[in-house]
């Protein structure tokens, strides 16, 4: 991975950043090979913190409201050691240890077309709401 900074935080992560710059340079250099000898220029833009900005949209107004209330539902019953979740379109809760039990990553064989370098666009029936971003 390409890192913007080698210093690691308390959780062991170094700050990622810079892969876009490398890809842009390589794409420009390689473009002529696939474009009859004529170079294509590249606009390189890091979206970065801009995607964190502004007011919450509909889902990020509704789901946090529900999660907050769900947390209180549990507390009022004296239940703890849980994490509130969305599962199969329903609000639910799981043991909090699930957070550290595994990693949630894109399922490549099911969702990513490695020949075309983009997602697959097939077999949507009964797929979860957020597709590959849902918990499998």
């Amino acid at each position: 991975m390409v890192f913007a900074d080698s210093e690691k935080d308390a959780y062991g992560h170094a700050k990622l950043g810079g892969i876009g710059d490398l890809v842009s340079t390589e794409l420009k250099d390689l473009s002529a090979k696939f474009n009859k000898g004529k170079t294509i220029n590249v606009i390189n833009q890091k979206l970065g913190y801009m995607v964190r900005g502004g007011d919450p949209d509909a889902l990020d107004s509704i789901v946090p409201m529900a999660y907050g209330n769900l947390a209180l539902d549990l507390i009022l019953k004296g239940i703890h050691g849980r994490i509130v979740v969305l599962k199969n379109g329903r609000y639910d809760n799981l043991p909090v240890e699930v957070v550290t039990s595994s990693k949630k990553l894109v399922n490549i064989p099911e969702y990513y077309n490695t020949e075309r370098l983009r997602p697959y666009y097939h077999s949507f029936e009964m797929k979860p709401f957020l597709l590959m971003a849902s918990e499998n």
Partner: protein
Amino acid sequence: MANSKSTKGVIGILTGGGDVPGLNPAIRAVTIRANREGYKVIGLRRGWAGILEMRRDHKADNSNCFEILTDIIVNKAGRTGGTYLHTSRTRPSHVRNADVPDHLKDTYNAEVNDLTPEVIKNLEWLGIDYLIPIGGDDTLSYGVHLHTKGVKVVAIPKTMDNDVPGTDYCIGFSTCVTRTIQMINSLRTSAGSHERLLVLEVFGRYAGFTAMLPTMAGAANRCVIPEYKFNIEQLAKLLVEDRNSNPSKYSIVLISEGAMFDG
């Protein structure tokens, strides 16, 4: 500190890690519901830093560490992005010597210190019965640690990366995807005007969800993600084909910040 005669209990709430839109609505929902049900809510400031750095002294200025939350405060704050309680990436079980609070430096003077005993004492001093940490897998991993030490934890998942295990949805993901698509739509006109390739690097750490869904929604032609090492020549060939088959003569690729070259 809590007056148990007038409240059913005390809930502590904090937001840790990266800020996202959606945190304030969650803080608002917890506060209003808790107050309705007769619970006091204490907002712990700056992720795990506030509950770590506070002083167990009624005369101390702990305004940077915690505050009582009310309907009036959260109704206003709940409309906006960011987090009213602020945040940090503090990990109380791994505090470097330089970051140990001054009043604890005599007791904790190793190179890296576990200040969990202080966190637990602080929670007890505040009278907190239940703790609601809102965060991604890092912030919540410390919540799991406190749970193993007997603290009553109910966690809420948050990350624009949407990669907290166990849940389909983490707070912040939708707005991130919304903003990504909006910004790409702002940028594509320049790409088209100049007939160029448009390369966009996006946050997502080790997971490719933040690149995959906007791409599927039509914001980009291709995406490369951390979960699959990509061949740059293959990408170049595809993007040039996309550009040349586009009447507007441009193409777009989304690159997750954690993506890696093949070789």
